[in-house]
């Protein structure tokens, strides 16, 4: 018992200790479990006398339930202390993304989420095709490439007029004049 506000006597404490140490006098002392909802209502003082008595009987007999009740009321007293900002930031972020993703769509777009994956694939494929087509167009396209392919000769790459010595050199190297 607390020294701050003494109550009872040493004899009272000794009697209580004796009662705790003894074998249970009532073997049929099984008490019904208390649901969290009932405990919360009791803590708020919203239970009627009979229901409150059941909760109090269980609290007197169940140390873990009593711990739960004491922790809850203690935390409510301590709740004046602000929570760390990083906790608030992280907790807020939990719903931001989800809320945006589940934002109510209009009637026309209500079916959109079901086809979302298909649209994503189609969009990526389309973008890929656009890039390919653009690059191909800049490169001249098939028609111009094939048009040039069959008529390439060595003279196309030689801008200077070939003299006899040049032709002789090429003949020696195995080229056709």
């Amino acid at each position: 018992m607390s020294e701050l506000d003494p109550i009872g006597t040493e004899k009272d404490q000794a009697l209580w200790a004796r009662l705790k140490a003894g074998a249970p006098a009532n073997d049929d002392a099984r008490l019904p479990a208390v649901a969290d909802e009932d405990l919360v209502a009791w803590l708020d003082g919203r239970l009627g006398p009979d229901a409150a008595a059941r909760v109090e009987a269980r609290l007197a007999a169940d140390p873990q339930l009593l711990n739960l009740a004491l922790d809850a009321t203690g935390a409510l007293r301590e709740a004046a202390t602000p929570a760390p900002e990083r906790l608030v930031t992280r907790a807020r972020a939990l719903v931001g993304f989800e809320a945006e993703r589940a934002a109510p769509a209009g009637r026309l777009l209500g079916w959109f989420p079901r086809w979302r994956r298909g649209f994503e694939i189609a969009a990526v494929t389309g973008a890929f095709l656009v890039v390919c087509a653009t690059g191909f167009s800049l490169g001249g396209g098939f028609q111009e490439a094939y048009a040039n392919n069959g008529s390439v000769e060595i003279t196309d790459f030689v801008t200077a007029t070939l003299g006899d010595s040049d032709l002789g050199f090429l003949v020696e190297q195995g080229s056709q004049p």
Partner: protein
Amino acid sequence: MASFDDIDLPALLAGGKREWDRFVAAAAPVIHAVARRVVAAHNGAADEAVDVAQDVFVRLCADDRRLLRTYDPARASMGTWLAVVARSCAVDHLRRRRQTHASLDEVPESAAAFEDRHVERLNVPAGLLTERQALVLKLLYDRDMDVAEVAAFLKVDAQTVRSTHHKAMLRLREHFRIEA
């Protein structure tokens, strides 16, 4: 400090971002206070409380806010409900973490005895004490609480606690004198 009274519960359950932010502002101090207590009771590091509190928030909004939907405003205030729910979630979180990080042999017995709910039986004949009297004696003698703390917990005045204690002890003394 943000208040639970400002929260529009249907909008919160519908996933409103603004309502969630308001809820977080009001709930974070309560949940963090619960987490601090639970972590301290299990000899955890102080900064572990933020992780524990964060896990409570995750559970509140998981599965389309299934846990949050169990709150019934007709039965209790949101703050009290949240404190009880957060405490259960926090204990579960620490239990899972301990099971992940250590084998049972490495955990001290006191820490391993998480929510082993058992009923203590007193050698008091049924009906001798009222439920309230038994609870008052339990809080005063077993939990070492003073009269003011007991009064605050039971939401009664200190004189009522003294009176309840006095009547309970009278009954016990009288009963055991007769039996002896």
